[in-house]
């Protein structure tokens, strides 16, 4: 290797460094690499913030009492046990409660879809006096906090009566509390849990459908109701699915109305979960809150499981539904 050769190499290297395209390419590559690392760190960190407590709960559900007071145990139990799950199963009366809860939320969801799509269709396709004002009222029902109507509704269902008819037949109004009827009644009348939002979603969706569909149906001799049930409702499937997911999840998690109407804990899983610690302390005579807490963790895992399954099956529609149903539009 002589000096001349070295000089040629040197010149080549200098040329490369001075070459604009090469330089910008390297800089770009470095930039995107840094950006990628930044993104990765943030996403992993945020995911940990969300998942951390959940992982903690699931791990704790497998702890045995000796692990609780062992300071060297973190996350992974030394003596994993299913005892907590067994206890939670018994105290939640899992299968029976889950069955009742599922019937409850699925029937409510079906009613929500039917009623809210009807109302949304009415708002999107027909002109009637005060339409804008009435739709403004729908928005008000979304925004208005439910606790401002809590007491009157409680009293209303405590002494349920329609224009004094029941009072004249039975002599006294019916007490509808401590059962699920109030929730059904409110949902049928389109004012159930977050119904306003669903009406809004359906209305936006129907507005996006072409009018020609209905005109064709009309020419073929279908009446308005026939058109709605046979044609429009089928076309609204994407919106219906996203409403179904929302409605199921929120209804499942709802504690406000469950508490207000004192729905029996044997028929509402999440509501029952809130009393499980007291039950365990009282019935199983486990007075140490650290240990009774373990069964609560197991209970939470059990309660979250069905809703997670629903979510994983339908999660694709969860996002796409919103994108298509046009909260955005």
């Amino acid at each position, binding site marked *: 290797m002589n000096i001349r050769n070295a000089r040629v190499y040197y010149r080549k290297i200098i040329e490369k460094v001075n070459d604009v395209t090469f330089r910008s390419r390297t800089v770009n590559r470095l930039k995107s690499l840094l950006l990628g690392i930044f993104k990765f760190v943030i996403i992993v960190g945020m995911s940990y*913030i969300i998942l951390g407590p959940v992982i903690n*709960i699931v791990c704790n559900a497998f702890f045995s009492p000796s692990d609780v007071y062992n300071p060297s145990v973190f996350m992974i139990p030394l003596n994993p046990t299913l005892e907590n799950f067994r206890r939670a199963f018994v105290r939640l009366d899992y299968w029976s409660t889950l069955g009742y809860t599922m019937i409850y939320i699925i029937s409510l969801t079906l009613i929500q879809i039917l009623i809210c799509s009807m109302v949304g269709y009415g708002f999107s396709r027909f002109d009637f006096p005060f339409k804008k004002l009435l739709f403004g009222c*729908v928005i008000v029902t979304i*925004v208005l906090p439910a606790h401002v*109507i809590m007491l009157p509704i409680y009293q209303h269902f405590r002494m349920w009566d329609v224009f004094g008819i029941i009072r004249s037949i039975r002599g006294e109004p019916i007490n509808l509390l401590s059962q699920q009827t109030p929730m059904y009644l409110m949902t049928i009348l389109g004012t159930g849990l977050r119904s306003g939002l669903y009406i809004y979603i359906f209305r936006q969706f129907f507005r996006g459908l072409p009018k020609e569909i209905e005109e064709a149906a009309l020419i073929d001799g279908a009446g308005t109701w026939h058109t709605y049930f046979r044609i429009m409702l089928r076309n609204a499937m994407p919106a219906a699915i996203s409403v179904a997911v929302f409605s199921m999840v929120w209804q499942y998690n709802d504690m406000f109305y469950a508490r207000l109407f004192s729905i029996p804990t044997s028929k509402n899983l999440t509501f029952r979960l809130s009393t499980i610690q007291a039950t365990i302390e009282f019935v199983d005579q486990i007075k140490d809150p650290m240990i009774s807490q373990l069964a609560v963790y197991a209970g939470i895992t059990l*309660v979250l499981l069905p809703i997670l399954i629903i979510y994983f099956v339908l*999660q694709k529609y969860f996002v796409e539904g919103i994108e298509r149903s046009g*909260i955005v539009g």
Partner: protein
Amino acid sequence: MNKSIKKRKIRLTLRQKKAITGFMFILPWFTGFMVYYVRSLVLNIRFSLSKVEILQTGGYQATYTGLANYRFALLEHARFNQVLVDSLRDILIDIPFIIFFSLFMAILLNSRFKGRALVRVIFFLPILMGSGAVLRSLELATQNIIGGASAMIEELSTGTQINIGFFLDVMEELGLPTALVDYITGLVSRIFEIVRASSVQIIIFLAALQSIPNSLYECAKIEGATGYETFWKITFPMVSPLILTNVVYTIVDFFVNSEVVDLAYEVAFTNYNYGLSAAMSTISTAVICLILVIVSALITKRTFYYN
């Protein structure tokens, strides 16, 4: 002759017929709105203006007392004022951060990377875990983690001489206002709640981002816009209408889970003081509505509408 006139009078135009059909469609909601909302609101205000006694039969008797309940709630009740102010302060502090954070996360989640589907699933998990009992235990578990973290910080600070307090002092020495430092530390300590509270907002922003036509970006690229310019000139204006939606959603959602609601519930069903509880609900709702109106007026002024 007479008959035909009568008939013509009853006959409706197509428009009127359609109006009636349309009204039939919204009739269920209309009934519910009248019975459960309008009637309840009126009753609630009546409760709040009177002393309500629960009768043995389950009924109630309301005697008008004027503004006594409001006066008691605002001037004499031990906790109401503080709880209300605290919740309002939390709402106002968190909103800007939640909005920026959710927009930022939506942009991150909108770009392509491996495992995006999984990350999305994780980010929407908090929606599923909104119920009271689950939330309470989640908070407990969070405290365990935070406790672990602060214990770790203490150990680190003795071992490596890293002291969080020192950094806070440095920030103040640099001339940053104390309020700002407090704001930052407050946000950091509540990061769990904030992340958990912004999942629906992320979805909404994500949907907005995906509805931006790609041609706008192509056009900007051809014209030689940098990423920074593209964000401020295209992305931000296009999602800005959704900022209002998100702010409203955040306020309402925050308020539904706030302590004020718990307090009103407690007063009504533990102390059986319906009048006071109704007054509390009315005051807090009025305040929230006022905030909503002001905030939406402020935001609407600056919003860009594409269509």
